[in-house]
C-alpha cells in the first residue's frame, strides 16, 4: 500500500496526474465506511491551514486538511461559528483522527441546525480541487452571492471525493447567538412529537433544532438568539404547544452536541440515516423494530440495530424510501455485510451521475466504488 501525502495544491495535482492505480482519499480518517476498492491512500492532512478569515464579511477560506477543531476555535474567538453544525463521527464510529473541513465538505455533513439554516452545501461559497486527471480547477469564490457559471460548488459538496480531490474550500460563517435554551416536551408517540416539532418549525418563533427521542418519549426544541428573544419565544411556543421543561444554555449545549453526534448509538453495530419528508416520520417509525432517533423536525431518522440485522434493516429502510421518497445512507455496518452506502438512484439519475463522474474522473481513480456505479 502506498500513502501519498502531498504538501500543497501543485504537489497534489502532480501526484494525481501521476497515479497509476486508484486511491482512497483521506482527510482526518474519522470515517472508514464504504467499499472503496482502492488500496493506496491519498492523505490530505499536510494541506492544512486557514487561508483567510474576514469576520465582518462572514467568510472563511481554509485548506482541505484543516482540522474542524482549529476552525471552530478561530471562529469562536470572533464569536462566530459554522452554523450547519458539522457532526463529529468519532464517538459513533469509534474512530480516531481529527475531522477535517475538506471531509466535512466532501460529505456535506450537517447537524441538527440544518433544519433551520441549511446544510453544509448551503454555506459552501467556493472550492478548489484537482480532478481525476490532475487538472487544477475551481468554482465559486469567496462572496456570498454568485451565479456566475454552473454551481459546481454544490456538486462538489457531498461528492465524497469521487469528482475530485478538494484542497481549498471557502465557507460562509455565522455569528454565534448570545444564548440558547431547549424546551423538552413529553410526547408519548411519534405523532405527538411530530406535532410539536412541526408546530414550532411552522411558527414565527424560529427553532434551530427539533429532535425526538422515542426511547425517552421526549421531543426537544432548541431556541437560539438574544436572551430577551429566546425567553419570549420559549413562552410563545409553550402557549401554543403545551408546557415544557426548560434546559438553560449549560444543559442545552451538551444535549445538542450528543444528539448531533448520535452518541446514543455508539454501541450499535449498525446505524443508518434516512432523509424523508418530515410528515412521513410516524409512518416510518411504525415499521422500525430497533432503536431510532428523529432529527430535522422528523426529516432525518437515525436507525440502529444489531450487526446481524444490517442487511434486513437496510432493505426495510430502502424499501420505505423507494415507496415514499427520500434516501437512506448506511453510516455504520460490518464490512462483510457488503452493503451499498448510498440509496440506489432512479435509472435516469444514476446514468446522469455516472456520466458526470466520468467527466471529472475518467479513469475512476478517486474513491472508486464509494458512490454508486463508480
Amino acid at each position, binding site marked *: 500500500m502506498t500513502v501519498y501525502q502531498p504538501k500543497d495544491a501543485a504537489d497534489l495535482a502532480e501526484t494525481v496526474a501521476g497515479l497509476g492505480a486508484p486511491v482512497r482519499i483521506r482527510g482526518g480518517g474519522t470515517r472508514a465506511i464504504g467499499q472503496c476498492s482502492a488500496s493506496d491512500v491519498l492523505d490530505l492532512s499536510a494541506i492544512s491551514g486557514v487561508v483567510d478569515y*474576514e469576520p*465582518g*464579511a462572514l467568510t472563511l477560506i481554509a485548506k482541505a486538511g484543516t482540522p474542524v477543531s482549529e476552525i471552530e476555535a478561530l471562529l469562536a474567538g470572533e*464569536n462566530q461559528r459554522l452554523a450547519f453544525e458539522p457532526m463529529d463521527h468519532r464517538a459513533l464510529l469509534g474512530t480516531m483522527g481529527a475531522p477535517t473541513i475538506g471531509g466535512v465538505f466532501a460529505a*456535506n455533513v450537517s447537524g441538527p441546525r440544518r*433544519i433551520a439554516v*441549511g446544510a453544509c*452545501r*448551503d454555506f459552501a461559497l467556493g472550492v478548489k480541487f484537482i480532478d481525476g486527471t490532475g487538472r487544477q*480547477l*475551481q*468554482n465559486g*469564490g*469567496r*462572496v456570498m*452571492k*454568485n*451565479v*456566475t*457559471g*454552473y*454551481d*459546481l*460548488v*454544490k456538486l462538489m*459538496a*457531498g*461528492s465524497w471525493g*469521487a469528482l475530485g480531490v478538494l484542497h481549498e474550500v471557502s465557507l460562509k460563517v455565522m*455569528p454565534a447567538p448570545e444564548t440558547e435554551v431547549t424546551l423538552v416536551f413529553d410526547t408519548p408517540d411519534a405523532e405527538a412529537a*411530530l406535532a410539536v416539532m*412541526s408546530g414550532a418549525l411552522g411558527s*414565527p418563533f424560529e427553532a434551530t433544532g427539533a429532535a425526538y427521542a422515542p426511547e425517552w418519549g421526549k421531543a426537544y426544541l432548541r431556541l437560539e438568539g*438574544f436572551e*430577551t*428573544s429566546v425567553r*419570549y419565544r420559549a413562552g410563545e411556543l409553550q402557549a401554543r404547544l403545551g408546557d415544557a421543561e426548560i434546559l438553560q444554555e449549560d444543559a442545552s449545549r451538551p444535549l445538542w452536541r450528543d444528539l448531533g453526534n448520535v452518541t446514543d448509538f455508539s454501541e450499535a453495530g449498525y446505524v443508518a440515516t434516512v*432523509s*424523508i*419528508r*418530515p*410528515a412521513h416520520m410516524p409512518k416510518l417509525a411504525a415499521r422500525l423494530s430497533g432503536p431510532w432517533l428523529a432529527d430535522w423536525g422528523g*426529516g*432525518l431518522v437515525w436507525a440502529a440495530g444489531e450487526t446481524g440485522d444490517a442487511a434486513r434493516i437496510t432493505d426495510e429502510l430502502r424499501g420505505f424510501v423507494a415507496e415514499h*421518497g*427520500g*434516501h437512506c*445512507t448506511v453510516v455504520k455496518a460490518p464490512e462483510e455485510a457488503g452493503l451499498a452506502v*448510498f*440509496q440506489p*438512484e*432512479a435509472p*435516469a*439519475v*444514476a446514468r*446522469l451521475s455516472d456520466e*458526470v463522474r466520468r*467527466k*471529472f474522473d475518467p479513469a475512476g481513480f478517486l474513491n472508486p466504488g464509494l*458512490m454508486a456505479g463508480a
Partner: protein
Amino acid sequence: MQMPEPDSNTLAKKDRLEARIVEAIGRQAVIGDEVELRAYECDALTAYRCPPMLALLPRSTEEVSKALAICHEMNVPVVPRGAGTSLAGGAMPQADSVILGVSRLTEVLETDYTSRIIRVQTGMTNLAVTGAVEDDGFFYAPDPSSQLACAIAGNIAMNSGGAHCLKYGVTTNNLMGVTMVLMNGEVVELGGAHADAGGLDLLGLICGSEGQLGIVTEATLRILHKPEGARPVLIGFSSNEVAGACVSDIIKAGILPVAIEFMDRLLIGVCDEYSGAGYPDCEALLIVEVEGSEAEIEHQLGLIREIAMRHDPVEFRKATDADEAGRIWAGRKAAFSAIGRISDYMCLDGTIPVSQLPYVLRRIGEMSKEYGLGVGNVFHAGDGNMHPLILYDANKPGDLETCEAFGADVLRLCVEVGGCLTGEHGVGIEKRDLMVDQFAPEDLEMQMAVKDVFDPKWLLNPAKVFPLASSEARRMAAE
C-alpha cells in the same frame, strides 16, 4: 452582441417542425405567426432582440417532453422561457431556435404545512407562490424585485436572489426538488420533499444553470412561517467608507438583519425626488430591516443604533409605524424606475467582498470620470452584491457601446478584488464574453463538459453563458 450565424438547414425545417409539433401537442400550444412571435423576441435586456422560428407553450410535463423529443430528433435549438424578465438575455431566442415557454404551467400541485413545502408547476409567478400559502401564515422567501412577474422557472434557472436573502438565502437554498425534462425528452426527478441528495447533488447543479441542462416543469419549494413583524431604519452617513464600516460592524455584532440596503448620493437624490421618501441630504444611506415581535425588533434596533452612533451618522431614523416603514422603503424600491425617468441606464450585478466596498466605489467614481458617464450605486450591502447603474443616452451614437465598455470594466474590477461577474441576474448573453476574466479555460471546459452530459447535442440555450469562441466546437459538432 454577437450571436451565432443562424443555420440555414435548421431554418428550412420550420414548416415540418411546426407540423410535427402541432400533431404531437396541438395547435393551441404552438405559435408560428410572425406578429405573435414578436412577444418572444427579447427578455428584459431589451437592447437585443431576435424572433424565434416558433414559440411552444405546452400545458403539461408530458407535452414538454414530446416537444423536446421532436426538436432533439430534428436538431433544433430550444430556448426555455419563464416570464421573460431576465436582465441578462437568458431567454433571448436565436433566429434558428424555438422558444419553449412554461407560462401555461401555473398550478399548485401540493402544499404540506407539516413538512413546510409546496409543489408547483414552474410557470407560476414568484409572488403567486407566496399568494398560495399566505392565508395560512406562510411565505416563499426568495423575493426578487420582479416577483410580481417572474416565474419560478426563471428563478431556478438563474438562482435568483431578493431583498431578504441575507437572512433567508437565494433560490438554491429554498429549492428542494424538481421535475425536469432533458433535451431528448426524458423526464427526471431530482430531490423532493426531503432534505439533501442521496448521491451527487444534481439539484444544486441544475439551479443556476440558465436553462442549459433541462427544462424544469415542477418544483418543490421550502416555505416558512411569516415573522411576527418587520421594521426598517434609515441611517445616513457622510461618506461611503463610514457606511461600509457600519455594515461590517453590524454583522460582526451578531445581529442578523433580513436586509441591509445601500444607496449612494446620486441615488439618494433621484429616489427621494421620485418617491418623496424624505431621505436626508448625505453621501451614503443604509436601510436596515429587522424582524420579530415588537420587543425583539426594539431590541435589535437598539443595538443597531448603538453601533451606528459610533460612526457619527448624519441621520438615524427608526420607522415608528407601517406608514413610516413604507416611506423608508419607497425610495429604495423605486430606484430603477426613478433612474429610468432621468436617463437610460444599464444595471450591473457584480458581487465583491464586503471589505472592498469603499475601494470599489472609489474606483467606480474614477472610471465614471474617465468614461464621461454618470453612475449611481444601489445594492445589497450585507452580501456585497452591487448594482451600479450606468447612465447613458440611447439616442446618442456610441453611448451604449461606451456604457458597455464601462460596465465590463466595473465587472472586471469586481473579479479583481475577489468577487464575481454576477450575483443574481445570471450570465446569459450579457456577461458571456467576460467569463474568461473570471474562469481559466479548464474551468470553463469542466462546466461545458457537464453540459455535455445533460445535452450532448448542445441544443438547449446553446449560445448563452459560455463565450461563443469557447463553445463553438461543441455547437458546431451538434449541427
